[in-house]
C-alpha cells in the first residue's frame, strides 16, 4: 500500500513539505558538521605527518644549568628508550641590514625566522634516520667538525628559497654595553629528501660543537629521545617527566592525541546539537502523522469496516511516516552535500563526506521516521470503526 501512503503524503503538500524540511535540516546539519569534523581530523593528521617515536625533552624553565649528564644517562636507562640525542636550538635573528653581495635571503612575505638545530654528527643517524638521504649535496659528517655548514630539511629549503652553496647569516649578539653583533655565515652543504616528518623537513641541521664554540656555551638545553615502540610514547613521556624535575618531556604524538581528543569532544558536542535538531525534526514528523491520522479517523474507520486489518493500518501509517522522513533524509543529504561544497569553497575548512556519515544520516532518518510514526500508527490501528463512523 506504498502508493496509498504516498498519496496521503501528497494530500497535504505544504504540511508534508515543512515536515520534510525539518528532517532535512537535521540530517544536513549532521552531515555538514560531521564532514567538517572529519576534515579537521585529516588536517591534523596530515600536518603532523607520521612523526612517531620521538620525544622532545627540554630543560625546565627554572633550570639555567642545562640538562646534566646524569639526567641524560638516566633517561637512556628508561625502558623503551633506544637513544638519547642532545641537541641545541639556536634562533636565527633576521638580518635587516642590506649587505651587498650576501647570499642570505629570506623567502615569503615579511621573511621568516629559522631555527638551527645543533647536533653531534655521530647522532645524525639516530635523529634523522639512516635511510634518509640528501637529495642534493650530502649529510653532516664527522670530518665537518667545527665547520660552518648546514644541512636543510626539504621544506625549509623550499620555503626559504635556499639552494646548495647558499650562505645563511647567523648573527651573534654579545650581551654587553655596546651590543656588539658578529655575523657568521653557514654554507648549505646538503638538502635532505622529503620525509613527511615535520621535525626533519622543517629543520636546519648544524654542528652542535660549532654552535657551542661560537656561543661559548656548552650547556645542553634540549634532547631528542627515540623510543622502540610508538605506542609507548605517552608512557615514556610520563616516565621522563617523573624521573627528573630538571626536564620537561613532550611528544608531538601526544599533542596530536590531545588535539584529537579535544576534537572528538567537540565533535560529540556538535553531534549532540545536530541530534537535537534531528529530534525536533522527528517530533515534527510525529506531529504531522498525528494530525494526519486525526483528520482521517473516519477514513481509517471505513477501511477497517470493509476489511482492513489492524496490521494493514499500522503499516500504512508507518510507511507514510517513513516516507516523510526518508525524503527528508535524502533532501538532507543533498543539503549536506551542497553545504560542504560551499564550506570547502569559501572557508579554510576541509570537509570530507565519508560513506559512513552518509549512511549514518540516512539510517538515522529512517529509524527516526519509524520511531516517530509508531505512536500515530498504533493509535490509528486501534481506532474503533463503530465509534468513528457513528460520531464523525
Amino acid at each position, binding site marked *: 500500500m506504498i502508493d496509498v501512503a504516498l498519496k496521503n503524503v501528497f494530500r497535504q503538500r505544504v504540511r508534508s513539505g515543512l515536515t520534510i524540511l525539518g528532517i532535512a535540516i537535521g540530517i544536513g546539519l549532521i552531515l555538514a558538521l560531521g564532514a567538517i569534523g572529519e576534515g579537521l581530523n585529516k588536517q591534523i593528521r596530515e600536518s603532523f605527518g607520521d612523526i612517531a617515536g620521538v620525544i622532545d625533552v627540554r630543560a625546565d624553565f627554572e633550570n639555567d644549568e642545562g640538562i646534566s649528564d646524569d639526567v641524560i644517562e638516566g633517561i637512556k636507562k628508561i625502558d623503551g628508550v633506544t637513544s638519547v640525542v642532545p641537541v641545541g636550538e639556536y634562533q636565527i635573528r633576521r638580518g635587516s641590514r642590506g649587505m651587498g653581495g650576501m647570499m642570505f635571503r629570506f623567502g615569503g612575505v615579511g621573511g621568516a625566522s629559522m631555527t638551527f638545530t645543533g647536533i653531534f654528527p655521530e647522532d645524525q643517524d639516530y635523529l634523522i634516520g639512516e635511510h634518509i638521504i640528501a637529495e642534493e649535496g650530502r649529510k653532516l659528517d664527522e670530518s665537518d667538525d667545527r665547520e660552518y655548514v648546514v644541512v636543510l630539511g626539504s621544506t625549509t629549503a623550499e620555503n626559504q628559497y635556499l639552494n646548495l652553496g647558499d650562505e645563511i647569516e647567523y648573527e651573534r649578539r654579545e650581551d654587553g654595553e655596546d651590543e656588539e653583533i658578529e655575523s657568521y655565515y653557514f654554507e648549505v652543504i646538503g638538502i635532505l629528501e622529503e620525509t613527511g616528518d615535520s621535525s626533519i623537513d622543517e629543520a636546519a641541521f648544524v654542528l652542535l660543537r660549532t654552535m657551542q664554540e661560537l656561543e661559548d656555551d656548552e650547556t645542553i638545553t634540549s634532547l631528542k629521545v627515540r623510543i622502540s615502540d610508538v605506542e609507548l610514547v605517552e608512557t615514556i613521556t610520563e616516565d621522563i617527566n617523573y624521573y627528573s624535575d630538571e626536564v620537561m618531556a613532550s611528544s608531538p604524538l601526544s599533542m596530536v592525541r590531545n588535539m584529537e581528543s579535544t576534537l572528538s569532544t567537540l565533535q560529540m558536542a556538535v553531534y549532540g546539537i545536530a541530534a537535537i535538531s534531528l529530534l525536533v525534526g522527528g517530533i515534527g514528523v510525529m506531529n504531522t502523522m498525528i494530525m494526519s491520522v486525526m483528520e482521517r479517523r473516519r*477514513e481509517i474507520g471505513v*477501511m477497517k*469496516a*470493509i*476489511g482492513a486489518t*489492524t496490521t*494493514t493500518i499500522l503499516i500504512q501509517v508507518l510507511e507514510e511516516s517513513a516516507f516523510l522522513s526518508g525524503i527528508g533524509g535524502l533532501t538532507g543529504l543533498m543539503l549536506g552535500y551542497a553545504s560542504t561544497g560551499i564550506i570547502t569553497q569559501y572557508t579554510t575548512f576541509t570537509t570530507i563526506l565519508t560513506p559512513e556519515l552518509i549512511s549514518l544520516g540516512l539510517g538515522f532518518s529512517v529509524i527516526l521516521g519509524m520511531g516517530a510514526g509508531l505512536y500515530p500508527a498504533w493509535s490509528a490501528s486501534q481506532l474503533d470503526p*463503530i465509534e468513528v*463512523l457513528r460520531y464523525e
Partner: protein
Amino acid sequence: MNNGEIVCTGLVKTYNVGQPNEFKALRGLDLTLSEGECASIIGPSGSGKSTLLNLMSCLDTPTEGEVYIEGIDINSLNGFEKARLRREKLGFIFQQFNLIRGMTSYENIELPMRFKGLPPKERKKRVTELLDLFGLEGKERNKPTELSGGEQQRVAIARALANNPKIILADEPTGNLDTKTGEKIMDLLLRLNQEEKKTLVIVTHDQRIAQQTCKVVEIQDGRIK
C-alpha cells in the same frame, strides 16, 4: 459453507456494564436470515437496529448470545479473522457512502481486493466489470467529490461487491439521496438480491423502503416486535 446465511441467537448487548449509565441495546434477539433473503430492519432510533447491524458486521461483540455468519460463530474469531470475514463474506453500504476522499472511484472499488491481497490484474478485471455493471464507465478517474450522490453510492455498492460477498449489509442506503435517486439505488440493491441471490439486510426507518423487501424485521426496545 458459502450460503449467505445469518443466524442470531439470544443476542444481548449491554453498554457500560455495571455503570450508572448502563444501557441495554438488545435484550435477547433471535433472527435467522437465509440465503438470498431480503430483509429490512426498522424501528425508532435507539431501538437497537444499529447495534444489531454492528454485531452482524463483526464490528462489535455481543454481551450474550451468538452471531453466525455462514455458519461461523463470530465470537470464536480473532481480530485478523474478523477483518478477513468482513472483506470476503460481507459487503457494506453506508448512509454517508464513506468513500475514501483522496482516492478515485477505481481505487475505492479496488480497495477491498487490495486488503485481500489479490494481484493487480485480477483487481483490474473485477473493477472494470463492476464499473460497467453500475453504469460508472468514464468515472473511474473521478474523486468522490466530483461525483453526484447517486454516483457515489453506486461506487460504494461496487466497492461492497468487490470481493463478491454473499451478504450485503446496508445502513440507510438512501438516507442521503433525493427520492428519485434513492429509488434507483433501491432498485439496484433489490436486483442484486434477485439476480445474484445476495442476502440483503437494509437498516432503515423509511417505511416505503421497508415495504419493498420481502421480510420486515421491526425492532423495539431491543427485541423483535
